[in-house]
């Protein structure tokens, strides 16, 4: 571990944003899920209520102020209300990220009383489920009921829809439903290719034509609805030529806590080799944030290789995403290959080229799609 008091630790700013993944249990099987492939291995090791509150208190004392409660499906834990209420008392701005499954009136009333600030409702969404969703009155009624509850309890209706090759052409129906639900904000973000979504990347990456069509439909809705329903449309980063400023830089604002207590600089970092991520069971947040080797590993820019090291944009995007660099090039210190300056950029452009294949030939070339479920996850535990 790097010792506190070293020149670097004097410049480290406190965490501002905590994401508490309180469980990886989930009733859904989304093919684009960014939870780790071996998520099922955390089921027996989840932090207790007390352990969660201790970690949140410690992070709050350092200055963290935004809190996401996510998962998995956070409503799978029956202490979700208690964690939200206690966190709110500590002074966090608390945001619940849920599929809405399990959100009864009793529970939303408890969340409101406990001070929950925002609810983000996601569409459960895989091929079969999307079709069910688009055609089944039962699912639609359930969603509509949850949407009504959210409005009734004076929350804005914030809808997150993950887009991909298999649902992006339904964009008009998706937006029509959002409008019927009186959504205030709709985020239409293409899936990012991590974890389950990386396994299913060929299946999930839309073609340029699909993206253009979807964006055009979004623009029509924007024109018609103006501020009544705000739309955010995000293309896959593979279509960009500069990487995202991932997490606003490693260990600068964001602290992710996994269900088993692992402290991570992002949702995905657990799979990076050679780093031992600290656990909240063994260390306090201050030690983890300021002193742990893992949180210091990619702070600043001394770890960078070329072309990042001498790049005049390195303080803008921090070389992109360490996890993506590792997954695609085998070395987390490389430039994120989304960058056109990366010597590995063709890995990304090859995938984009592959995504331009015609929809109609899909069935011939389509690899097997892998659903995020406990059985598949257990198969990855031993990998």
């Amino acid at each position: 571990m790097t010792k506190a008091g070293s020149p670097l630790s004097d410049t480290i700013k406190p965490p501002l944003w905590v994401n508490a993944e309180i469980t990886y249990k989930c009733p859904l099987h989304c093919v684009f899920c960014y939870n780790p492939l071996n998520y099922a291995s955390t089921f027996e090791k989840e932090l207790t209520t007390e352990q969660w509150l201790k970690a949140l208190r410690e992070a709050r004392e350092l200055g963290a102020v935004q809190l996401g409660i996510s998962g998995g499906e956070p409503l799978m834990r029956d202490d979700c209300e208690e964690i939200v209420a206690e966190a709110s008392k500590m002074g966090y701005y608390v945001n619940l990220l849920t599929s809405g499954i399990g959100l009864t009136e009793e529970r939303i009333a408890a969340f409101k009383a406990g001070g929950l600030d925002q609810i983000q409702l996601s569409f459960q969404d895989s091929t079969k489920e999307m079709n069910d969703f688009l055609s089944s009155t039962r699912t639609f009624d359930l969603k509509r009921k949850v949407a009504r509850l959210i409005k009734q309890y004076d929350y804005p209706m914030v809808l997150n829809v993950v887009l991909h090759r298999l649902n992006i052409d339904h964009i008009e129906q998706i937006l029509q439903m959002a409008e019927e639900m009186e959504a205030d904000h709709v985020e239409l973000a293409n899936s990012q290719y991590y974890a389950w979504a990386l396994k299913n990347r060929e299946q999930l990456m839309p073609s340029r034509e699909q993206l253009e069509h979807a964006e055009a439909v979004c623009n029509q809705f924007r024109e018609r609805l103006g501020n009544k329903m705000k739309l955010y449309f995000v293309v896959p980063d593979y279509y960009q030529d500069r990487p995202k400023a991932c997490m606003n830089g490693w260990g600068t604002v964001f602290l992710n806590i996994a269900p088993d207590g692992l402290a991570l600089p992002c949702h995905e970092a657990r799979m990076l080799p050679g780093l031992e991520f600290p656990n909240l069971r063994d260390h306090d947040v201050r030690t983890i944030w300021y002193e742990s080797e893992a949180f210091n590993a990619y702070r600043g820019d001394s770890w960078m290789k070329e072309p990042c090291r001498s790049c005049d944009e390195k303080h803008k995007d921090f070389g992109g995403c360490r996890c993506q660099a590792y997954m695609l090039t085998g070395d987390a210190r490389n430039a994120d290959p989304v960058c056109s300056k990366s010597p590995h950029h063709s890995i990304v452009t090859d995938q984009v080229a592959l995504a331009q294949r015609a929809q109609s030939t899909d069935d011939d070339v389509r690899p097997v799609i892998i659903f995020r479920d406990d059985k598949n996850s257990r198969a990855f535990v031993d990998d």
Partner: protein
Amino acid sequence: MSLDTSQPLKFARQYKLQWEKAQDAWVLLYPEGMVKLTGSAGEILTRIDGERSAQDIIDNLQAAFPGADLQQDVIDFLEHAHDKGWITPV
């Protein structure tokens, strides 16, 4: 957008004002974001309570900081806050 200085003001839904010890400043919190306020912005926004109007806030500040001519600065800032969607008439 100009603000009616006689109307009571409140924070918009989902905006919360809070003192942050770690930052030694008042901050305005909203979904997935935060604005760190300067000292004078904090003085103005802490006076918003759902009952005071812009003029009440000016009078109140004028009493707290006698000698300074605050009128226009306070109105400019409240209009900025209103344009940003942080505050709204009751």
